[in-house]
């Protein structure tokens, strides 16, 4: 008990004197805060992108692509394929028609608002009548749904916010086609919010695609009927298709970019962390050096070396905690919800998303800050505990 009381006493003393050593403590705090800002904000990009991709798609729906295709963009299904697929068991049938939608994807060039001079690859999805009833997450936020058979389109909320000419009432000109934007839709933050939706048949005509599609999205009877659906299709010699659950498809589409951002984020934060530890060591070393006489006095009075050691470590961790909190708060205020878009190489099309500073990231940042404080305080603490009392008392 006495040991704890001693430690607390020395710690209280140390912490109360931090303001007196403000400039030197400030260096450690700013260093650690800087690392945490960079760490949290870079990872919040990955978190936001992944959330957008994984929030898309449901395990209750299956996506059919041509075998070998790695995305909807490279896939192709003929009208005949689509008719065969719709006969498969495992699809929900409300009334008579299968709840399955053949869809078409193309990319058009539209500039981003932030770079009005450079075109960006904006995905356009041609949808069928079943596409919307199947997506229960779908809702209109502005305007109205387009009329099938016309050149009307609706734009995802993120697309409308990121690219030019996608507000209700605008006209999108692409090649020789002119499409009127009549509404803005939402799909619970999913990646489809970066898309423009149009009648699949209108899109087939506009791009001379004949009666072909690229993917087929099917509502499964239940989550477990997936296997029956897949086995039927893969064993059918008329077809050459691959089947995945919709959510798994989107998760796989986000892998490459997420991994790249994480590699860069951890790498940079790791290196910066080493630098910040050096900063903390310098600070604590100075703190110990300027108080050598006080520390020696305490020890001469009978405070044991353990409590001196722990108190120096604790002080360093308090600096880490302050730095980590400042850094986390700064990252949160500056980046949480920050809207941006990037090109996903796997689909060659734009994905709009918002940075997400999640509680997990903040906790990781804070843990990292404490760790930097702990390591930074270790050597100075050992030094303080080992300081020969007579020498230290004579110092200065």
């Amino acid at each position, binding site marked *: 008990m006495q040991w704890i009381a001693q430690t607390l006493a020395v710690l209280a003393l140390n912490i109360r004197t931090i303001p007196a050593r403000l400039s030197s403590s400030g260096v450690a705090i700013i260093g650690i805060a*800087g690392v945490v800002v960079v760490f949290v904000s870079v990872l919040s990009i990955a978190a936001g992108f992944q959330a957008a991709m994984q929030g898309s798609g449901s395990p209750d729906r299956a996506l059919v692509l041509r075998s070998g295709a790695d995305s909807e963009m490279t896939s192709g299904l003929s009208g005949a394929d689509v008719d065969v697929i719709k006969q498969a068991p495992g699809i929900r049938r409300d009334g008579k028609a299968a709840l399955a939608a053949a869809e078409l994807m193309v990319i058009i*060039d539209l500039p981003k608002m932030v770079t009005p001079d450079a075109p960006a690859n904006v995905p356009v999805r041609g949808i069928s009548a079943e596409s919307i009833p199947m997506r229960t997450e779908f809702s209109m936020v502005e305007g109205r749904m387009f009329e099938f058979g016309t050149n009307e389109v609706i734009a995802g909320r993120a697309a409308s916010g990121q690219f030019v000419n996608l507000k209700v009432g605008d006209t999108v000109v692409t090649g020789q086609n002119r499409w009127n934007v009549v509404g803005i839709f939402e799909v619970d933050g999913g990646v489809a919010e970066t898309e423009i939706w149009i009648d699949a048949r209108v899109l087939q005509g506009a791009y001379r695609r004949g009666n072909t599609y690229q993917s087929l999205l099917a509502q499964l009877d239940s989550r477990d009927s997936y296997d029956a659906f897949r086995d039927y299709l893969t064993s059918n010699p008329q077809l050459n298709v691959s089947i995945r659950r919709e959510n798994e498809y989107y998760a796989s589409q986000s892998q490459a970019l997420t991994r790249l951002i994480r590699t860069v984020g951890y790498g940079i934060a790791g290196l910066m962390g*080493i630098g910040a530890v050096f900063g903390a060591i310098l600070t604590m070393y100075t703190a110990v050096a300027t108080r050598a006489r006080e520390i020696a006095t305490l020890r001469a009075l009978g405070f044991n070396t353990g409590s001196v050691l722990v108190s120096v470590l604790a002080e360093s961790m308090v600096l880490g905690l302050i730095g980590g909190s400042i850094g986390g708060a700064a990252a949160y205020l500056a980046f949480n919800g920050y809207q941006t878009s990037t090109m996903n190489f796997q689909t060659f099309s734009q994905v709009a998303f918002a940075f997400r500073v999640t509680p997990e990231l903040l906790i990781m940042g804070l843990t990292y800050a404490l760790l930097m404080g702990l390591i930074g305080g270790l050597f100075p603490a050992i030094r303080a505990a080992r300081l020969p009392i007579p020498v230290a008392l004579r110092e200065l």
Partner: protein
Amino acid sequence: MKFLPLVWKNIWRRKFRTTFTLLSIFIAFVLFGILMTIRYSFSFGVEIAGADRLVLIHKISLIMPLPVSYQARLQQVPGVQLASHQTWFGGIYQDPSNFFANIAVVPEPFLKIYPEFVLPPDQLKGWLDDRQGAIIGRDLATRFGWKIGDRIPLTAPIWLPKGGGTTWEFNIRGIYDGGDMVDKTQMFFRYDYLDENRIQGEGQVGWYVVKISDPSKAVELAHSFDEMFANSSAETKTTTEKGFVEGFAKQIGDIGSIMIAISSTVLFMFGLVAASTMAQSVRERTSELAVLKTLGFSDTSILGLVLTESLFIAFTGGLLGLGLAWLFVQGGDPTRGMLPIFVLPARDVAIGVGLMAVMGLVAGVMPAIAAMRLKITDALRRA
């Protein structure tokens, strides 16, 4: 110069502190080097994009095909040296994570338009003799350990072969090389092989690259191409290669400014550490500096002594750091193929050296001026 030993002694008076200051600056410049490398790789080599090359794509989007017949029409336009087409294949080697670019081209015009891809003549001959032949970049060869003569199967996500299945096979006939800034992670194979063996899409190509005689006519020519194909079933959009690459980089979003923001944070942070330790080390020496002044050292030589010391620390730490970053970059892309051009540009090295000077001066100047202005009597009394 004769006071260098004095500076040296001062630097090492507190070994522990100097070591850690050096290490902080070292880490800062390692990071600077790596961040600038990443920034550059996201610019996709825009700095070496040919000013005499135009890229002609489908007006709606790069992914829409163009007819192969445009080749002859482009070639006839006065001012055009050579026009040739390329087609994205998107083939996958075993697993999507092994991504690399593989593109169908017409070998001879392709290599004439891109003189930066260096291929030995005997390998070119081998490629021309083999319809299934392909050439690969040096870095790609290293990545998978491929050699000339190897047979490589790629799964085609877009173009299905007439023979059934989804796999195409290629024979490696050459390994191209090029300078630091050249992307050596790509594979090029013959368009005739693709076009004769695919089920659908016959006679379609991805985009055209046109080499022109006079770069100052680029804008005019680009317009005349687009007018030539206006109102056809495949309208075009022509830009300079530089504009095309820049546009592509902009699609990714502003990685460059994120990297610069992080670098500035890092350098500011470590600059602060260096400055605060420098200031402290000068403060500790107040009485010694006063003694030096008493001995007749002029104000400017005191200023020089302190600045030399801080510049020495900044340059030693900085150059070692940038050196390590350079070594790291020589090791190649750590993400395995996602950053095809992975070099530390000379310009950024120069900026780095400039930043070292700035860091040394900023860290040293305050304490140096304080030391210079020191009144001998005050200083001696304070001690």
